[in-house]
């Protein structure tokens, strides 16, 4: 393996392995780039666009853009943070996100990235979509109000669990998460609380029952430390079954 592959990110040398994307390399080097739909155990998706960087002057998604030797990357600039702030605002306007009453507060990546980027308002008129809650399943419930359409649950269920419980349907602003059952109810699938799909949601759409508030508000990962200080936590790794830290 060539030992000397590097690119510069905001002036700092970042080493990378062949095949790594800019985001993967940065996180491996404990350098933070804001992101939402990326998960360390999955192939980068490139849909949220919060990780948009400027690579050699061109706006691209850091999570999917292949690292190249000698590349010059801009990341923590006012221009890019402005863009990211707007994208996060768009997600807050699109869904129904009520942080104060959300069980996932403090675990939620959207909330954490929002705080980190100092998002104070949604900035746009709220869509107030009607998205029902599915509490039919004995172990897991779905609050679709929070969905940011990152497809992580779809991917986890397909690729790790082999169950194909979730899918996306519709397009444009009508795009939404669906459950793969004739009834459309989670109870009529073979979903289990131990599934990978039950632990990957970055925003608390998929929550385990009888486990709410097990970790008190104030002691959760993003209560303790901003997400930008936890870059290494997102360094790419092979899929594992359960994370013990939460």
């Amino acid at each position, binding site marked *: 393996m060539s030992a000397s592959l590097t690119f510069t990110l905001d002036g700092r040398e970042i080493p990378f392995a062949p095949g790594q994307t800019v985001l993967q390399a940065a996180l491996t080097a404990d350098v933070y780039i804001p992101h939402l739909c990326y998960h360390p155990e999955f192939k980068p998706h490139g849909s949220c666009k919060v990780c948009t960087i400027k690579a050699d002057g061109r706006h691209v998604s850091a999570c999917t853009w292949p690292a190249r030797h000698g590349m010059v990357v801009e990341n923590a600039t006012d221009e890019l943070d402005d863009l990211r702030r707007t994208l996060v605002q768009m997600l807050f306007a699109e869904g129904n996100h009520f942080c104060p009453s959300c069980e996932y507060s403090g675990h939620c990546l959207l909330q954490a990235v929002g705080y980190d980027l100092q998002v104070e308002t949604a900035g746009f008129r709220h869509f107030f979509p009607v998205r029902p809650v599915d509490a039919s399943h004995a172990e897991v419930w779905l609050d679709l109000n929070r969905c940011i359409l990152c497809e992580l649950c779809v991917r986890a269920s397909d690729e790790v669990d082999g169950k194909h419980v979730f899918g*996306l349907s519709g*397009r444009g602003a009508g795009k939404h998460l669906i459950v793969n059952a004739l009834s459309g109810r989670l109870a009529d699938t073979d979903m289990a609380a131990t599934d990978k799909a039950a632990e990957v949601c970055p925003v608390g759409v998929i929550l385990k029952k009888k486990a709410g508030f097990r970790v008190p508000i104030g002691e959760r990962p993003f209560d303790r430390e901003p997400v930008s200080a936890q870059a290494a936590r997102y360094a790419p790794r092979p899929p594992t079954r359960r994370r013990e830290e939460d």
Partner: protein
Amino acid sequence: MLLDNDLRPGDALRAALARGDLSQVEQAANTRSWREANVAPPQGPLATLNEIRTANLRGRGGAGFTTAFKWESCRNAQGEQRYVVCNADEGEPGTFKDRVLLASHADLVFEGMTVCAYVVGAGRGFLYLRGEYRYLLEPLEEVLARRRRDHLLGRDILGTPGFSFDIEIHVGAGAYICGEESALIESLEGKRGIPRNRPPYPVTHGYLQRPTTVNNVETFCAAALIAARGGDWYRATGTAKSAGTKLMSVAGDCARPGIYEVPFGTTVADILDMSGAGNTQAVQISGPSGTCIGPDEFERRIAFEDLATAGAFTIFDGSRDMFEVARNYAHFFAHESCGFCTPCRVGTAILAATMDKIHEGHGTPYDLDEIATLDRVLNQSAHCGLGHTSCNPTLDTIKRFRPAYDLHLKQLDFEPAFDLDGALRRARQMTGRDDPGAHLATEPEA
């Protein structure tokens, strides 16, 4: 040139197959040593590729990518099987030239695909037919069947050992986004039509992750003409940077709408004349993802170096409200966004809602600034061209037809999109109240 061509089925292929050896000798004489040129792989396909390069053919789907470069990249890509895909998902509002080519010049389309297969070394091809054009399926299948009988498709085409290629027609389901080549390939594979992350590009990782050449219907037709008549012949028409002719789908406020084939370099004014348009206020070039121009720009030319276009040419006369035109296009993009990426999924919906707010008389100059911001966000971060261009019709019309907007705007700095007093309507009903205390002022007090 294209519409009045007198090629018979197979002419272009015969010319391509015949070209091989002669060009090899010429190249040897003109370039390096005879020996060096001679050790190269069989020259037949490369000779045709050279003609395409000489012709300076560029993609007719709007982006104008150099066809020879695309074919060569596909030819040189590693892979056990290569594919040729014809993008007949003609979905840009205002364009209908591919429909005419498929209905009246299907042989030329298939011939161009077969020439491409010969050049890149592909064994299979797909025609991705727009869902709305399903009625063309049977006639197109008949043409394919006839071409198979005539040995213009199938195994050992025209008796050439190893030159085997066949074409399958895949009918789309009516999504605009599938005109984007990587979304089209996803759809071909039976998946949702969502543009892929690029790189890698289809020339190396296309259909089934194998090297794939995707071209527009008109590009294949032009390629067939070039294979038959040569690159120099083709390049003699058009401008220095834009060779050949362009099919224009002329529609809207004119006496003679229809398909016009014009050499590159033709001015907008010329096309307006030909089609009998009068009192023209604006022309939308290349559909909503293109450019909207006003009368002071009608001397501009149809060419890659000036007004690049996929062919849509939509004429609006003085009776049209250009704000409403832009609002309609904004709704089109919001409807057709695939919903994959945040900026496009949410941004196109916000744009459409903002245009509705202006339409309903609640718009202010602040909203126009917001649209400029949206445009920047979409251009910097959207996943594909749909998002990048979705604000174009609005921005173009704000720039050129501002009075149409001012008619709808309030002269306040800002007004909320929601009706504060209206929001209390239900509460008033429930409490049976309608006194002044149950109402909120919506206009700020002076």
